[in-house]
């Protein structure tokens, strides 16, 4: 691959991702509405798609206020971190056989590292706001992330064992005969649950639970800084969906259609599922979330790891 090609891929991925993240504003509002027997935004432009433009313009024209009691520089940096780290995670995702920014041989570890770094944005945002609700939100975010990060990594280790590689293109190639969602159903379920918690989406939106904590860690944010948290959240959804597709649902593999389209379709299906979860499930209590994580999912994933390891060893003889 020449340098020029590489730059084109980087720019293309960035362009597509930011557009998806913005477009999800509309998709989510429309789908949520449909699932709640409403119609949703359908006035601006065809099917209301220009609501994205309206929303963005609104965010830009809002007063960008930094509270006088806030820790100014950390307050400003926090929203950028979540977008930055999530965008960095996309570096390792193979969208199609040759469309990948950097096919690292520790791809999976890089993804786990970057998605854990995203919690800094929550913690720093909550801390710098100097507001009790924001601080509580940040604290919850940190503990949730620590709890769920543990078995998010462990849930993927089964796949790594079967593949023998951390490289994502290898993992996709290993699913040529059978997707890992069949070989690793427990891994898939646990990874997806951890992914929801990782993006702090509903029903695991404990850090920002608006009915208890105003808006949690971003209570004090307004204007485009709030918009960055928003974009970060949508990018996070896209990231977890893309990772689920890559690791468990054969990535770009599929008949007839071009590989990138297969990848897109699968990812989109998971994004829809994220929105469906938001429409259907209530938020658990904070202690329930922790209990669920440490007492149920962690033992489950360890057991999965043990059995997968045993079977892998047994097959190899």
């Amino acid at each position: 691959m020449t340098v020029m090609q590489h730059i084109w891929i980087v720019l293309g991925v960035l362009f597509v991702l930011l557009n998806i993240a913005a477009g999800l504003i509309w998709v989510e509002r429309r789908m949520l509405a449909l699932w709640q027997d409403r119609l949703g935004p359908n006035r601006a432009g065809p099917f209301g798609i220009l609501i994205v433009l309206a929303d963005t313009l609104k965010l830009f024209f809002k007063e960008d206020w930094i509270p006088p009691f806030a820790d100014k520089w950390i307050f400003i940096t926090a929203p950028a971190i979540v977008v930055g780290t999530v965008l960095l995670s996309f570096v390792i995702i193979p969208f199609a056989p040759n469309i990948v920014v950097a096919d690292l041989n520790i791809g999976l570890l890089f993804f786990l590292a970057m998605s854990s770094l995203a919690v800094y944005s929550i913690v720093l945002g909550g801390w710098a706001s100097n507001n009790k609700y924001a601080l509580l939100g940040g604290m919850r975010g940190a503990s949730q992330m620590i709890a769920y990060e543990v078995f998010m990594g462990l849930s993927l280790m089964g796949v790594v064992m079967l593949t023998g590689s951390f490289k994502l293109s290898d993992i996709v190639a290993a699913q040529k005969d059978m997707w890992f969602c069949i070989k690793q159903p427990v891994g898939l379920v646990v990874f997806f649950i951890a992914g929801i918690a990782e993006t702090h989406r509903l029903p695991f939106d404990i850090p920002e639970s608006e009915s208890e904590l105003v808006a949690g860690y971003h209570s004090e944010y307004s204007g485009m800084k709030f918009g960055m948290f928003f974009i970060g959240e949508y990018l996070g959804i896209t990231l977890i969906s893309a990772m689920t597709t890559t690791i468990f649902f054969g990535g770009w593999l599929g008949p007839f259609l071009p590989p990138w389209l297969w990848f897109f379709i699968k990812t989109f299906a998971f994004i829809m599922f994220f929105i469906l979860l938001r429409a259907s499930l209530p938020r658990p209590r904070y202690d329930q979330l922790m209990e669920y994580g440490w007492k149920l999912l962690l033992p489950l994933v360890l057991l999965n790891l043990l059995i997968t390891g045993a079977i892998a060893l047994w097959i190899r003889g």
Partner: protein
Amino acid sequence: MISHVRTIWLTFLHLFTKKVTIEYPEEKVKLHPRWRGRIVLTKDPDGGERCVGCYLCAAACPVDCIALQATEDENGRRYPEFFRINFSRCIFCGFCEEACPTYAIQLIPDFEMGEYNRQNLVFEKEDLLINSEGKYPGYNFYKVAGINAGVKGKGEGEQEEAPVDIHSLLP
């Protein structure tokens, strides 16, 4: 766990149910006959104003949005000299309609009265008076009232006896 999956599935099925949204400007909400909307002053079947300027509506109004001044014509029939409702204050509670002894003031099923200028929400008598009997057709207060105000003479009403000659009541 099963119940969660069931919840998700049932929510998904809502994609195919009929939506409850009424797309307002194109599609109107069904308003029932007794819906409390814009306030009007009605007329009796003969085309005269029903309002007798008794001030009961203004007294009943919890937000004091009704102002009027009663006067009399040459026949002794009372009517409001001016009648003013400030719709930027009105809460559409309908107390004025309940208080009105002559069915003059009525709330009708209409809510489309948005204005850019607040002053335009102050309705004068000519804005309020409509050429209709409203919800009580055929009712004319002065036909059943015991006074002569140019509509009928004393004692000529439908359920009314002729006035008693008070001199004949002497012992």
